[in-house]
């Protein structure tokens, strides 16, 4: 514990309500509550509180209130409380400050400055409750042309098609590895993806053997710099194979799974000794150039006999458009771009908060570049990084995404409250932990239904918005920036986004 730091949160216990049932004590993995039998009293330890609200919502009498600590240093615009506390922590430890979840700094959220269109008079809006509204999406490289032959039975396609994965709505669960999240959370994502007809992403922690048969068809399996869990069967049981180059929360560095979270089962799936840190190298050491990437893409295509689209995931950085173009030319079927607000189970705070660019700008730039070069149909683009609602998703598709990855939103649906302590392995909600006492708090049968509900509600909302625009198939809004307008954006921002200002 750090000395001389103000607690982040204050725990208020209404003694007239508290019945000393000790639920809070059992629920808090950080030791924030303790029962003292000598005095028959509950006491709180505010310095360990992370503000996850687990105790507050589980308190049967509503006796607890956890809120940001009232005491503060002399207010200072430059030296904020967070900067102040970080300095003190580093002075004490000499270490890099770790954090979890996505960037929480007030970078402009462009989704909140883009508005969608609707039909009035000149064309009719469509009522999705009464008429078909189609969200089916294909991920992969599209053929440039088809050889269609007319024979006596009708038209027939003669040429071979590039592998594509069909999903029923353009929302895919983002890479969250078994190891970073609990088996229960991992399985919940797989079950929900299967139920809805979309995909989950295994991250770089492998896919447990017993899940391959049932959930492989809905899996995007990752091949990351640590190569954890990669074997031939792993690649071949999946729908899509993804090469992970970068992650929006930590561009330029690899994954970190602390040894505390490497339980026996995690170790088995990653093919590493139990309890050892699983540190992925920052680069893929067989990829020092675009030619090397191409070799890995084709190695994976060979390994899967050209039956699966190969995706390459990168963090959104300054020259993202040129990099994406190179990736497509290197043979990738899908380019996944993760923006600055993308989440993580563990990352140095300085990197999470300062490196990368917003997904909105990156996506717009990539889509435009691929079109300018005439290669947009040679790949699908998946956008990731901080999607909060179906409005964000539809705006991303209008900017040019084929589909989006959602990570944080899915975690919140499972119970996460964004306390950002994923890296401690002590998640009170049973999500980001390997402690069986905590992880059993998630029941995949129940949690997967929450995830399904989330996707279904978004599906309904997207259909409503599409219908309002007079569009009944998602492919007709894809890259259709005519249906977007900017509000409160500067000229250069509108230029990069390729959208007009509202009223224009």
């Amino acid at each position: 514990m750090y000395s001389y730091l103000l607690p982040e949160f204050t725990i208020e216990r209404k003694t007239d309500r508290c019945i000393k049932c000790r639920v809070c004590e059992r629920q808090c993995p950080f030791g924030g509550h303790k029962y003292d039998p000598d005095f028959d009293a509950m006491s709180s330890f505010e310095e360990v509180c992370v503000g996850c609200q687990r105790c507050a919502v589980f308190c049967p009498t509503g006796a607890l209130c956890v809120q940001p600590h009232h005491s503060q240093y002399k207010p200072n615009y430059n030296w904020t409380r967070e900067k102040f506390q970080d300095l003190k922590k580093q002075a004490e430890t000499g270490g890099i400050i770790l954090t979890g979840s996505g960037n929480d700094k007030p970078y402009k959220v462009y989704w909140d400055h883009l508005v969608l269109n609707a039909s009035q008079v000149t064309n009719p809006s469509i009522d999705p409750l009464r008429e078909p509204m189609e969200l089916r999406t294909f991920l992969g490289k599209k053929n440039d042309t088809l050889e269609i032959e007319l024979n006596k039975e009708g038209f027939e396609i003669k040429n071979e098609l590039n592998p594509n994965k069909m999903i029923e709505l353009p929302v895919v669960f983002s890479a969250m590895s078994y190891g970073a999240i609990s088996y229960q959370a991992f399985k919940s994502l797989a079950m929900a993806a299967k139920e809805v007809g979309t995909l989950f992403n295994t991250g770089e922690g492998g896919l447990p053997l017993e899940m391959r048969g049932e959930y492989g068809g809905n899996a995007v399996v990752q091949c990351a710099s640590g190569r954890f869990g990669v074997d031939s069967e792993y690649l071949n049981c999946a729908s899509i194979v993804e090469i992970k180059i970068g992650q929006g929360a930590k561009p330029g560095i690899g994954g970190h799974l602390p040894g505390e979270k490497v339980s026996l089962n995690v170790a088995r799936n990653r093919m590493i000794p139990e309890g050892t840190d699983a540190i992925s190298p920052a680069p893929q050491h067989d990829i020092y150039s675009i030619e090397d990437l191409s070799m890995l893409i084709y190695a994976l295509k060979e390994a899967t006999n050209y039956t699966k689209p190969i995706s390459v995931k990168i963090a959104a950085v300054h020259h993202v458009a040129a990099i994406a173009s190179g990736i497509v030319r290197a043979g990738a079927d899908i380019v996944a771009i993760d923006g600055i607000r993308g989440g993580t189970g563990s990352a140095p705070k300085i990197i999470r908060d300062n490196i990368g660019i917003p997904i909105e700008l990156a996506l717009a730039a990539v889509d435009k570049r691929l079109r300018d070069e005439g290669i947009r149909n040679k790949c699908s683009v998946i956008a990731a990084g901080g999607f909060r609602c179906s409005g964000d998703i539809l705006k991303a598709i209008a900017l040019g995404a084929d589909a989006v990855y959602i990570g944080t939103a899915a975690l919140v649906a499972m119970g996460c409250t964004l306390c950002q302590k994923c890296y401690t392995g002590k998640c009170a909600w049973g999500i980001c932990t390997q402690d069986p006492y905590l992880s059993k708090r998630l029941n995949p049968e129940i949690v997967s239904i929450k995830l399904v509900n989330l996707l279904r509600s978004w599906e309904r909302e997207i259909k409503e918005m599409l219908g309002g625009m007079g569009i009944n198939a998602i492919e007709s809004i894809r890259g259709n920036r005519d249906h977007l307008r900017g509000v409160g954006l500067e000229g250069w921002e509108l230029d990069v986004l390729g959208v007009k200002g509202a009223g224009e």
Partner: protein
Amino acid sequence: MTGYERKSSERYLPDQGREACGLFGVMNTSGKMFPGNIAISAIKNIKVRGNGLGGGFAVYGLYPDYKDFYALHIMFEDKRRDVKTTVENFLTENFIVTYDEQIPTNPHVNIFHPPLVWRYFVTPEKKGDERNISDDEFVVDKVMHINTSIEDAYVFSSGKNMGVFKGVGFPEEIADYFMLDKMYEGYIWTVHSRFPTNTPGWWGGAHPFSILDWTVVHNGEISSYGTNRRFLEMFGYYCTLYTDTEVMAYAVDYLMRRQGYPIEVASKIFAPPMWDVINRMDEKEKHLNTTLRMVYGPLLLNGPFTVIVARHNEMFGITDRIRLRPITAGAKDDMVYLSSEEAAIRTVAPDLDFAWTPHGGNPVVVRMNSTDHLLSMENSI
């Protein structure tokens, strides 16, 4: 394509036009020529569908004496002679111009701000690398150049033995102005009466739109315009007029000329069956329809439209996948009619053999010396 300089951002593109319109098309499937009065009378009957801000005609079989030459109908706004000189210099650099003349007009017809309209009969004169591309591709490239890079010049049509006459006014006024009823005969006539909800009193903005011998007349508003436009841009088609009809013309050219698909396939791309329907098809049909949607999703034309597309020996009409705009077909002997209104057809052919309303996405394909158009009667209303 050469000669087109992209602006730095798409936000500088003008808005897409929005319009609701009247359409009529007629073809003689034996190839017999007939004068313009059928098309003119029919479109006059549905005057309510236009508002006098645009009308136009496409005529096939127009120039039998020059049938081997590309006939370029080019307009010069404000009758600018200097632009005409620029265009002519460009034409002589790239083509052999066999004959040219001003398209005759009736000076007694009072019409809004007419441009100078000239026709050129040309043969491509390809140089260097251009020899590797087909004549058609070469012509498309040069037409795009004139439309995008030479201000105040615009190519109405560029096919062989056909031509487009259009302008600002009701279609019957345009017909009077160009004296279509007296001067020309053709075996296909398509006509359009425009009701734009945006403003431009611009002659280039009237229908039909044309590239090579393709012409398109269209009613509706394509909600997928941005998607369609940006997909076609990848293949060198730049929409300079910002009406959804132009997108349609280029999409037809891309799919039917460049990719070589018949209209029966193209129509599955423009107005595909719903997934619910595809799911119930037999494996072969399902594979075809799924693949077309997968590969050509960006060319799905979403939103309400009816379109009549023509080229030599073929005319077809189609309406959107959920039939938000009307189309009616009629047939009498070897004359086949398509229109947005049955009334327009009945005006000129009161005793039809058949009249029918096809389903959304089900094309009426009228072909020379065939009865293919009757196939669309199946399942019709």
